[in-house]
């Protein structure tokens, strides 16, 4: 953990300085996806579970937060908390079903359940169907901080990101996290040592879903929108790519990967479906030749885990 103090300090400094150099809306989007990718990385990088349906929690929480803020008039902090808890509840339900299968089946099951949720969102009244929930009010945080002010909003989002990042980092480096890594390396052996691996996997799954939900709920307040895009399998694929390109099982990789992908989408936005082609090509290249990802390779060069 000590080896990560310097890079963590650099990251915090960059986040604090960035809004004075780069457009804050872009940065907030990147931070939301960075937290989403970190949450996803807890499962893929540390438990070895590939969830192909994480958009369910990201987008699902977005709907809950947006609905709570707009229709029920909840203040933003309660709306985001509601989205996070909603995602945790969904995570409990999906995880309970999905952890019955391992490896490749786990990926297919989570993908199928997320697709089911997508169709549910398409039809439910709660979500506004094809239109989504638009014009979500940002409101005042703790009835004090006006979130319509861009810089205030940015630092609130940055604080949420750092909270989630710290929580996930703490989890990974705790005794609980050590057991997760043991499950990743050799599950039968962890079982024979007396660990109830299903419980560990389920807790990790719920925590990952909750943090993905925190990211999704925050995003819906920032962009004042919750839509079907965020629950679509395309978003699940994107978060996998972010983690893969940044380096799965690294602490900072998912953050860098998210920043990279959001920037790429920003520049390629006017090219339509070419974004998809580019994403696919990056997937192929990463899997064939760059499996450690940016921070995996960097960590190897510097001989310290990043």
């Amino acid at each position, binding site marked *: 953990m000590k080896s990560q103090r310097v890079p963590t300090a650099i990251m915090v400094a960059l986040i604090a300085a960035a809004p004075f150099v780069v457009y804050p809306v872009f940065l907030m989007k990147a931070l939301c996806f960075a937290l989403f990718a970190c949450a996803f990385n807890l499962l893929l990088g540390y438990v070895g579970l*590939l969830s*192909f349906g994480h958009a369910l929690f990201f987008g699902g929480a977005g709907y809950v937060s947006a609905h709570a803020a707009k229709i029920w008039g909840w203040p933003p902090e309660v709306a985001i908390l509601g989205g996070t808890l909603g995602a945790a509840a969904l995570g409990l339900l999906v995880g309970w*079903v*999905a952890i*019955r*299968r391992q*490896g*490749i*089946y786990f*990926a*297919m*099951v989570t*993908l*199928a*359940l997320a*697709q*089911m949720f997508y*169709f*549910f969102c*398409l*039809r439910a009244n709660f979500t506004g169907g094809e239109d989504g929930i638009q014009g979500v009010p940002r409101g005042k945080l703790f009835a004090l901080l006006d979130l319509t002010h861009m810089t205030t909003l940015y630092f609130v989002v940055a604080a949420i990101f750092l909270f989630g990042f710290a929580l996930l980092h703490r989890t990974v480096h705790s005794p609980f996290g050590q057991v997760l890594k043991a499950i990743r390396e050799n599950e039968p052996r962890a079982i024979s040592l007396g660990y109830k691996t299903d419980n560990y996997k389920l807790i990790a799954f719920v925590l990952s879903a909750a943090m993905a939900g925190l990211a999704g709920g925050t995003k819906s307040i920032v962009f004042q929108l919750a839509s079907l895009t965020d629950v679509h*399998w395309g978003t699940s*694929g994107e978060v*996998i790519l972010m983690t*893969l390109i940044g380096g799965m099982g690294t602490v900072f990789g998912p953050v860098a990967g998210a920043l990279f992908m959001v920037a790429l989408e920003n520049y390629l936005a006017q090219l*339509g*479906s*070419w*974004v*998809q*082609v580019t*994403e*696919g*090509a*990056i*997937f*192929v290249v*990463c*899997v*064939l030749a760059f*499996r450690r990802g940016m921070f995996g390779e960097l960590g190897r060069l510097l001989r310290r885990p990043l």
Partner: protein
Amino acid sequence: MLAVPVQALFGQLLIGLINGSFYALLSLGLAIIFGLLNVINFCHGALYMLGAFVAWFLLEKAGIGYWGALILSPLAVGLFGALMERLLLRRLAGLDALYGLLLTFGIALVLQGLFSNWFGSSGLPYEMPPQLQGGQNLGFMFLPNYRVWVIGVSLVLCLGTWAVIERTRLGSRLRAATENATLVSAFGINVPRLVTITYALGVALAAIAGVLAAPIYRVSPLMGADLIIVVFAVVVIGGMGSILGSIVTGFSLGVLEGLTKVFYPEASNTVIFVVMAIVLLVRPAGLFGKQA
């Protein structure tokens, strides 16, 4: 329940059987490929789409109609698959199966993205062959000839594939290599070539399904994108251990989906996923699966 008109019931049953044909053909290909390569072929849906587009190209650019396409399209897509296996998938041998899933997912994104750029997402019409137009009036319902043809062809293909795997020399080698590839290669059998042939056969089945689907659905770049997720659920329900199992599961889930459309249309998109969740809770290995 009795209020449902007989005509609607049989109509949806027929559509269910058609969808079931595609589920069976696609999950069969997935199961064969997974057995030997240990790869879940995520681009199976994209190759199904490619099969339909090859048929469309043959008609528009070369004047080759449906019957030619039924032969040429699986050949072309099979060749494409063989190249893909040689150039890309082979490099992942020995790695975790998740990498194969991610690689083929990337390929699916590239293929679907390219075709969306070229043709938009609305889709192109493909004419039904004249020999199969029209239909039979059975008194209680109208039975279109083409639909009967699709169900018949896919049944024949599924059973044919089963026969090849269970009854021929190629099939016995394939089954042996699935059990223990190292031992089989020690007997002097060219396992890498067997792997390429298997992958090509699996994706050729997807391409045939694409050609069969072209006159019913429009030929569109995203026709395979959502389908493949349903097929994944079918595979989880059936378990990939048994060839006949995936055929039976494919057809019965198609029928179940059709029936849901009659009795509770709101759930018709999700019923297969619900069945998957129930099967996972009751029998995690799948209906025909062997181990957990």
